Structure formats: structure tokens, C-alpha cells
């Protein structure tokens, strides 16, 4: 079997036992990238040189019998929204096309400390705004299952890279479904942690109260391992939870007997593609066979989740993206401006893409005097209602279930001119971010040859539980998730 067909934990074992060198592994992935990347375009910038150098260093350490890190030598793709010291971080925007950060994001530092080798910075929707990776200044990423289709978004590059075996695992970020939806569309595993479990330091902010960094992997075991690596308190992030994370990997028993699961009616019926639904219910059947009790549950405030999200996220984004002004770093207009106000206008008009500007305008409007109460304050109330709905559900259920995405991967260009239809792609994932709870997407089958994702939601900090349910489902379905590319 090709090295690139193996999962990250297997590679890690092979390298640490010195059955293969990190250099061999990195070279295998760089060869694979050379072969498929012209079609897939999962990366904005490849760090081939750096990766080779890092791999050699690790091999040397291992040959001297030194400690080289928990997952030493294993390549990783990093979504280009995470700050990497001395290496381009573009957020898929013209605004940061030539920007080189001077510090590492905490999650990045943790994977580096574990000996992981960064293979490249993955493509995404500009500033993580989108559900198809079509909003990248550097061009669209293609779905490895059907290259006429999108990989989902915004972490589409990370998802496609893992699915196409250009990297065994990847870091993504999820504000409204940006890890889970592309994971579903590309047939991989993606987890959005509890808000505050993973440090946001160095994650270029889209919507600060919703953003989380999370793992995107070939299978649930890798997912547990990568989550364990990046989770934990960070004094540089005031919203990070001061608590030692659980042992995710060792908790994967697959024993889910007696667990109670609720299927969320509002996001598991109307508005969901019937093929996706039938696939989802096959997954339900598999879980029931594993001994899970499944019931339907209704969470009425979910009806308003999408509307609330499209107030809160753009409002925070309008403020977070204000720093991109051409003064201190990043793109500045070439035009000879009359004054600084014109410089701001032109820099931001030329530097940001259409979707980013749309959301900045939406958010600015929602926060404006006279509209704040009607929009932002109302949206926050809905957020509270959604949290209450979840809390009521946790009294009765251990986990909640739904499809991850209402459809499978759609065609490139199909929804790009219709933002409202595009926004509906995240209908199942958004309530999770609004409530700050953890959720995982795991493959549950195919519809017309395209992967379908199964979403498992849990109470705050119950990552171990949702991972174990996902593991049980994965083991029970035993799907072949190798894409044709």
C-alpha cells in the first residue's frame, strides 16, 4: 500500500519505529501533491522546501534516539487562516497575498512541537466566509470525488487535501460549519470543538464568538489524536477554558450501548435532500444496531438560527476585518490618493472580495445606531433560546444527530451567484456554533457517488462522547472512502 493511503497515526507509528523515514513520508506526499494538485488545487502555498528540511531534522533526531515529538515526521496541511511564523498566511485574500506573520498560532505551535511537518497552507473561502471555497482570491478547490464540484467550505482546501491524500490530516476552522460541511462533502472526518477548548490565538478572526480551530482527518482515531494535540488552555486566549482536556484517543471503545440519541427534527427533514436523508437514516440504523436508543426531538428555536447567525457573524466580522486598512501590513492600493480616507476606501475595495464586502456591509449595518436593538440584540436573544433548547435536550439525550449538510457536493458555480441559497448549506451546522457546543461530521454513505456526512452533537466539553459515537458508526459502516482522483 502507498504511504499516502495510510492514516496519520499509522504513519506516526511507522516513523517512530523507524520503519520509514519522515523524509520518505514527506516525499511520498509531495509526489502525490505533484500528481493531483493541478486538478484539486487544495493549497494556496506549498511549503515543500521547509517540509523536507523539517523531515530531515526529525529523521536525524530519531536516528540519534532523541525525542522528536508525539507525531514526529507526520505531514499536516494547515488552513491558511492560521498564523504561521515566517510563512505566508493569506486568508485566501488579496489583502494578505504577501503577508508573512511574525508569530505562530497556538494550535500551529502545538502541532509543530509534536513534530508534525507542515506541507502547505490550505485553500479556503476568503477570511473563512463561504461554503464552497469558491470565494478564494487564489481560485477554487475541486472536490476529489467529482472535480466539477466544490469541496464545501470554508475549509475546502483542508478537506480536499485530506480526501485526495495530499496530507494525512489537516487543521481547519469552523465558524458556522466550515470544518464539518467540507468534511461531509469530501468524505472525511471533521470536528468542531467546544468553544474555548482550542486556543483561537493566531486564528485570523472571522466571528470571534463562534470561531474554533479543529481537526480534519481520514478517520475518527486520527481525529481524536489531533484534537488531543491542539486542545487545552492558552493564557493568550481569554476565552480559552482553563481545564485539562480529556483523553480522546484512549476513550475510543466503540461501546455505545445504552446511549440516548435525539434526531433533531428541524434539521433532519424538510429542506434536506431526500437522498442525503435516506443515507443519514442508514447511519441511524447502524447506531441502533450498536445499542443506541434513537428518538426524534424538536428544537423549535432552530428555525431562527440561520437568521441570527447572519447578524452576529457579519457584525463581529465587520469589526474584526477593520484592521485590514493598508496602514501597517498587507495590501495597499497603488492609487495616488488624495487623503487617508480615500486610501482606506480604495485599499479595502480592491483588497477584499465580494462576499467579504457583503458581510462587512451587513455587519456594519446591523451594529449601526438605531438598528442595533432590532438586529444584533435580537440575534443574541435567539442565541440564548438556542442554548436553552440544547440544554433541555441534554436532560434527555446524550447526543443529538442530524445530517451535516442538506446536500452533497454541488457543482462549481451552481450557487455562487445566489448567496441566500449558499447560506442554506450551513443550516445544520450553524446552531452548534451559536451554542458553542462540540460536533463531529463522519461519513455515513454515498448519494449518487458523493459522500454524505453524519453530524453528532454533544454537550459542552463532551468531545470524547461524540468521538466514541462517531467511532462506533465508522466501525459499523466500514465504508471505503477512497475518492476516484
Amino acid at each position: 500500500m502507498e504511504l499516502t493511503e495510510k492514516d496519520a497515526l499509522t504513519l506516526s507509528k511507522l516513523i517512530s519505529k523507524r520503519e520509514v523515514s519522515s523524509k520518505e513520508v514527506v516525499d511520498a506526499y509531495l509526489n502525490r501533491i505533484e500528481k493531483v494538485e493541478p486538478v484539486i488545487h487544495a493549497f494556496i502555498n506549498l511549503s515543500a522546501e521547509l517540509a523536507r528540511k523539517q523531515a530531515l531534522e526529525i529523521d536525524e533526531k530519531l536516528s540519534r534516539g532523541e525525542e522528536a515529538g508525539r507525531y514526529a515526521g507526520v505531514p499536516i496541511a494547515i488552513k491558511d487562516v492560521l498564523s504561521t511564523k515566517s510563512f505566508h498566511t493569506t486568508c485566501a485574500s488579496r489583502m494578505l497575498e504577501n503577508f508573512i506573520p511574525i508569530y505562530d498560532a497556538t494550535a500551529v505551535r502545538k502541532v509543530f512541537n509534536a513534530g508534525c511537518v507542515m506541507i502547505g497552507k490550505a485553500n479556503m473561502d476568503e477570511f473563512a466566509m463561504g461554503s464552497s471555497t469558491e470565494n478564494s482570491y487564489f481560485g477554487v478547490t475541486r472536490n476529489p470525488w467529482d472535480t466539477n464540484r466544490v469541496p464545501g467550505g470554508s475549509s475546502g482546501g483542508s478537506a480536499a487535501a485530506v480526501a485526495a491524500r495530499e496530507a494525512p490530516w489537516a487543521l481547519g476552522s469552523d465558524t458556522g460549519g466550515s470544518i464539518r460541511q467540507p468534511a461531509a462533502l469530501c468524505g472525511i472526518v471533521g470536528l468542531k470543538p467546544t468553544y474555548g477548548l482550542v486556543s483561537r490565538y493566531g486564528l485570523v478572526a472571522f466571528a470571534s464568538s463562534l470561531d474554533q480551530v479543529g481537526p480534519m482527518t481520514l478517520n475518527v482515531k486520527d481525529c481524536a489524536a489531533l484534537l488531543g494535540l491542539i486542545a487545552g488552555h492558552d493564557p493568550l486566549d481569554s476565552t480559552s477554558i482553563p481545564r485539562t482536556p480529556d483523553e480522546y484517543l484512549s476513550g475510543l471503545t466503540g461501546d455505545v450501548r445504552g446511549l440516548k440519541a435525539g434526531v433533531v427534527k428541524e434539521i433532519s427533514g424538510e429542506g434536506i435532500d431526500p437522498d442525503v436523508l435516506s443515507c443519514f437514516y442508514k447511519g441511524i440504523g447502524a447506531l441502533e444496531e450498536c445499542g443506541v436508543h434513537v428518538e426524534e426531538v424538536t428544537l423549535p428555536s432552530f428555525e431562527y438560527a440561520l437568521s441570527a447567525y447572519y447578524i452576529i457573524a457579519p457584525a463581529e466580522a465587520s469589526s474584526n476585518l477593520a484592521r485590514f486598512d493598508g496602514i501597517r501590513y498587507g495590501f495597499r492600493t497603488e492609487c495616488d490618493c488624495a487623503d487617508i480616507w480615500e486610501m482606506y476606501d480604495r485599499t479595502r475595495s480592491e483588497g477584499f472580495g465580494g462576499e467579504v464586502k457583503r458581510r462587512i456591509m451587513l455587519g456594519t449595518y446591523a451594529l449601526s445606531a438605531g438598528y442595533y436593538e432590532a438586529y444584533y440584540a435580537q440575534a443574541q436573544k435567539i442565541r440564548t433560546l438556542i442554548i436553552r433548547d440544547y440544554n433541555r435536550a441534554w436532560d434527555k439525550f446524550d447526543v443529538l444527530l442530524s445530517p451535516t449538510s442538506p446536500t452533497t457536493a454541488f457543482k462549481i458555480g451552481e450557487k455562487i451567484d445566489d448567496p441566500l441559497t449558499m447560506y442554506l448549506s450551513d443550516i445544520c451546522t450553524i446552531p452548534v456554533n451559536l451554542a458553542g457546543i462540540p460536533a463531529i461530521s463522519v461519513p455515513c454513505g454515498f448519494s449518487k457517488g458523493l459522500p454524505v456526512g453524519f453530524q453528532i452533537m454533544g454537550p459542552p466539553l463532551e468531545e470524547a462522547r461524540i468521538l466514541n459515537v462517531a467511532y462506533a458508526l465508522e466501525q459499523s459502516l466500514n465504508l471505503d472512502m477512497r475518492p476516484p482522483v
Partner: protein
Amino acid sequence: MDFETIIGLEIHAELSTKSKMFCGCSTVFGGEPNTKTCPVCLGHPGTLPVANRKAIEYAILLGLALNCEIAERSIFHRKNYFYPDMPKNYQISQYDIPLSRNGFLEIDMGEYKRRVGIIRVHLEEDTGKSIHVGESGRIHGAERSLEDFNRAGIPLVEIVTEPDLRSPEEARNFMMELRAVLEYLGISDCKMEEGSLRCDANISVGVGGSRGTKVEIKNMNSFRALQRALSFEEKRQRDVLLKGGIVTQETRHWDEAAGITHALRTKEEAFDYRYFPEPDLVPIEPDPPWVEELRRSLPEMPAERLRRFISEYGLPKDIAKVLVYDKKLGNFYEETVRKGENPIEIAKWVAGDLAGLLNEASIDADLSPVRPGGVSELVHLVESGVISGRMAKDVLKEAFESGESPRQIVSRKGLSQIADSNEILAIVKQVIKENPQAVSDYLDGKEQALKYLMGQVMKLTRGKANPKMASEMLVEALKMRE
């Protein structure tokens, strides 16, 4: 017309914490531009703020000293606007749930006292500093602008008063009182010229009991500027009203050199700051026992110290004020008193000549070249009649310049005064003999002639005569001539 001036102040004070409000950078004033910066205070993508606990502690102390309620829970907000000295293009500040509110500070206007309400005391971060190159000196019309972010992110407290002040003098007094409170708490450098203490004012002039239109004044960089600007504005608004005009609600800029205010922007052009809760920070929820501990740790406040100086040392109010409203001078005074000389005499020297010397040399009292021991020695020399007050002034000046002790100076220069009654009496007799005209003037009731004769005595003794003895002997001798 019957005018009423109403003034409210909005004050910003930089807190003298070691590190900035939301990152670990140094807060020391000055230095090469942009050297006291990091990715956080430069607003680099992905960075996050972490609140400085010491700054929260300082702000709570101020809230307590201003008799405010300390909120059990307060939150930070983002104040959004574009300006090149603001790295994130929003300022982390507080809005409708500030750290503390509903306090007061009393000011002493001599003939009356006024209790000035404090609406709120809240925490925020400072901006960087812009230098606009071009004729206007402002961002509008600048050829280019230079930015120094050393100051960006330094913790600030904002103090907003009720519109309780009724004159520019009251406003100035309030600022002096507040400055002293900050100084006594030891939480701010309070240097208006370095910008660590800044003040904006709202002023309206009403007629016949109705409220006037509020005008905001900015850019007053000293206590004097505050009073001058408000006096100018008070008169300007009165003149507008007298001519039957209407005062426009606007923001005006104080031009110190020209001594006038001019319009910056009207209310219609006012910014919409789009405040919303800062999602990167958690609420400030100070432990009630901690707040109580801080309350107990509050030092003596300037107003209390003033009362104590008056009652404990018997000082006149004006002298006590000089000592109290400069904390270091007050400390110097008390240290001198502890050495045992007459507190009133010490006060005169410390608040008078020494304060003058310190001021002239721009030295704080804690760094005075003449130590409390030296002043005590000086007062002892005068009180025991070794030197005259006149001589003591010169001795103090010399001690201040050379660092020598007053006793050393007196003995080195042979300055001890003549306290030998026979010697003085001989000179008194000589003066009477040589100045018959002045003597007869005195005997005719012209009191100033005595001063002249006294001057002659001092002249002949080269100022060494004990003035008290000389004066008594002169009067006695003249009496005998009657």
C-alpha cells in the same frame, strides 16, 4: 441677561502599570518609535487581548476613591472607528456596563464647597500617536502621517463627571483635586504635558434658567489651558446669545497659541461608533473580598490630609494646600516634622522657599538636594536665633545648589547673627545719633521711619543682628527719647 454656565468633564488618565492593557509590552514613556510593540498591540491578524489584572485593580481603586459603586460584573465593548493611530480600527473600551459608577468628588472653592457627581469610571486602551506632516498639522490636508504605536494599548481610565461644574475655575479646581487623588493612589503619572492626563469638557451657557446647547472642547493640555479655553468658550457663547444667535451643538478644538476655540465637527457629522460587546474578552467579575481588601488599602486622600494638616499642625489653609496638592512635597513636609521642629515654621519653609527652588529646578520633592534633615536644621538655626530668617533664605538656596548642610554653610561662612545685646545696643545708639531727621519723624508718629532706622541697624551689622532683638532695642531706645 441672566446666564448660567454648566460644565461637565471627561478625563482620561494613563495608568502606571508596568505592562500594557492587553499585552506584555512596556508602558515606559518615550523611546524610539514602535519599539514598545508586539503583534497584539500592533493589531496583527489573529492576535487576542488579555486584560491586565493590575490595571483592573488600579481602576477599582480609583472607583473606590471617588465613592463609586464597583460593578459585580462589567464588560468590555468595542468602539469602532477608522483612524491610523488605532491598530485594530476599534478601541477596546467599556460602554453601558462600566467598572464603576455613581460616585462623587468634592472640591473646595474657598468660600464654598461643591460635590461633583461622577457618572462613571471605566477602563480602556490608549491609541498610538500620529504626527501629521504638512501645513495643517492635522490629518486633513496632511502630506503624510507618521505613526508611533509605543503608546497604543497603554491602560487608560476614563472618568466622566455629571454636569455639576458652574465655572471654568471650578473645572480647574476639579482637575487639580482629581490629579491629587490619582497621585495619592499612586496609579498614574498625571503628567498633562506628556499626555498621561487628558481632559475634554462639555460646556453650555443657559439663559434665564433654561439649559444652553452643549459644546464639546478638546485639546486642553494643561490646567491653565483648561481654564483659559473654558473662559473663552463661556464668553463666546454668551456673546452669541447676546446677539440673539444660537449656539451650535458641535465639537471645538482649543488653539493654545491663538487662545481661541474653533469648530471641528457638528453633531450631524458625529461618528457612529457601533459599540458591541468585545467577544475576545470575558466579563470583569472582581471577587467581593478582593474589592473589600482594596477598599481597606485605600491611602489617605488629599482632602483628608488637608483637614489633618490644618488640625494636627495648625497650618493656615493656603500653606496646607500647597503641601497637600503635591503629594511628594507633603510627604517631605511630614518627614521633616517628625524630626521635631515647629511644624508651622517648617511648613513656611517647605511650602515657600523650598517649593520655589524645586519648582524652578523642575525637581520632585522626593529628589530634593536638601533633605528633610537639612530643612529641620535650618529651622532650628532660625528658631534658636543663630541666623536670621533673611540669612536662612540664602543658606537654603546655597544648600540646595551645593548639597552642603545648612549648619556647615553657617559655620564655614561665619554667618551666625549678633545676639549680644551690648553690641546691638551700641549700634542702635549710633544709628539714632546719625539719623536725627528719621528719629524726629518717628516721634511725630511716622511709623515708616522706624523701618528706615531698622534698615540702618541691619546695614551696619551686615544683616547679622538678630532682628527681633534689634527691633525691640530700637523701639526701647526711641521711647527714651520721647
